[in-house]
């Protein structure tokens, strides 16, 4: 199924054509953005607060619908997804947020397993996959702990494990290191970069310039809802900018 979806999406799981998003008449959170992100590509979204980074991510995981233009995610037109289409899409897109969005009354294992529970993954298989993921982020020994007993970096690693446990084709991260100190920031970013090397398309919104310089990945700069700069990854050709 995954292979069929990948074919449908071609080599660009995310395609945006002249997309605008407006919450009030005449005021655009995003304005005329065209973008193509290739499979396995790593893209940094950057820009000041209010530039439209979060809106762009919300459009990709169908939390918002575009006011104008077309968005194709994994070959599906986001504006035309039905009631069952949105959950189906989100099972193929992992999302990580600055505030982790973990459930405090569930253990680490239960939080990560949530993404498998919604598709009815048998418990034994789910436990095994969760354990593997937690091991890959170095938290297997903390799986029966509750999130509030973990450090910020550990909580973000749990959130990352939850986003990756379904082996998503796209990983979106909205300021994933915004609440973390520099050491933990690098720890989390290394894990995210590692996911992209396994073929997952990754889009990370950040205004941390040190990360942009350190990783040398493709960078899309937004300002006032418009793309003002699309810098290719160091030593590679770029996707299509506006």
């Amino acid at each position, binding site marked *: 199924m995954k292979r069929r979806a990948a074919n449908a999406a071609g080599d660009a799981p995310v395609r945006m054509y002249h997309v605008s998003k407006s919450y009030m008449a005449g005021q655009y959170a995003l304005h005329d953005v065209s973008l193509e992100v290739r499979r396995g590509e790593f893209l940094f979204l950057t820009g000041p607060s209010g530039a439209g980074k979060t809106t762009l991510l919300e459009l990709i*995981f169908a939390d918002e619908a575009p006011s104008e233009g077309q968005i194709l995610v994994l070959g599906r037109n986001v504006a035309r997804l039905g009631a069952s289409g949105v*959950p189906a*899409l*989100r099972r193929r897109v992992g999302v990580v947020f600055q505030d982790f969005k973990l459930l405090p009354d569930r253990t680490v294992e239960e939080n990560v397993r*949530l993404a498998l529970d*919604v598709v*009815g993954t048998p418990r034994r298989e789910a436990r095994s996959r969760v354990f593997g993921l937690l091991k890959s982020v170095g938290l297997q020994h903390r799986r029966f702990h509750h999130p509030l007993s973990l450090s910020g970096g550990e909580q973000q690693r749990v959130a990352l494990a939850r986003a990756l446990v379904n082996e998503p084709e796209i990983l979106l991260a909205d300021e994933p290191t915004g609440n973390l100190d520099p050491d933990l920031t690098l720890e989390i970013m290394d894990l995210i970069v590692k996911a992209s090397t396994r073929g997952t398309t990754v889009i990370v919104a950040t205004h941390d310039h040190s990360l942009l310089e350190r990783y040398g990945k493709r960078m899309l700069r937004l300002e006032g809802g418009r793309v003002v700069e699309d810098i290719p990854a160091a030593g590679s050709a770029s996707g299509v900018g506006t």
Partner: protein
Amino acid sequence: MNRVWMLIAIAFANAFRGIRTASTTSSLAVVTIAIVLVLVGAASLLVANMRGILDEFGAELQLTAYLESAISEEDQRALANRVAAAPGVDHVEVVTSDEALERFARIAGGPELLAGLDENPLPASLEIHLLPEARTADAIGILTASLDGLPGIDELAQGQEWIEGYARAVSLVRAGALGISIVLGMAALLIVANTIRLAVYARRDELEILALVGASRTFVRVPFLLEGTLQGLLGGLIALFVVYGAFELVLPQIRFGLELVLGRAELRFFSVAESIWLVASGSGLGLLGSIMALVGGRAQ
């Protein structure tokens, strides 16, 4: 375990988790449903027993035709045969004036009470037993009209008026019980709906995360529906036990009064099917309340 069973197990686990997390509001919903169903159950039991008594009275319903004193025993039998052939009549018994006096003496407490009587003042009579389908006001009216004025019949007496009055009382109690049940049922629905709304609100973070990881609308909603249904089920069971306890404890206390008024007090509790109905209506209330809460709510 395949995926469907896994999803069902997860839905139940989430429903129980919801009840545990919001134990105070859940308890409120359970108690409310229980109170409503205790009242509805008690009223239903009252109506069912009143109807039972009415049916038994109906089975014993008969017309009595008092005969003229001059009529001979031969004419009495001939008249009885004629009446027995009338539509709606099952059979006719002749009670001679001597038999009538004996009966009276038995009821009154002994023959010595009648010692001072010079002659038997009681007339002979025909006791006319009716077929079940003729035990209605209309059928009795038609039969009475056809018998009235027959030669030899002095007066027709019927226990129908008392029974009709009782039937009206049953209807009144039933209508009252239905009205009260509807009002209380609506109140219970609103309380369950608000309980579920509170549960949805309390778990908004969880719902947001579930939506993020691709939970379907069904996956999100079913636990809330189960939660309401389970609350209703528990409320229904509690109500059934309370009504049963009251029935067993209160009935012995009022048995004497009932026997005095009705002549007997063979009251019954709900049958198994009726008990299941009472509990199921609790679940139904809970489910309906949850649906009300979810329609247009946050758990989309």
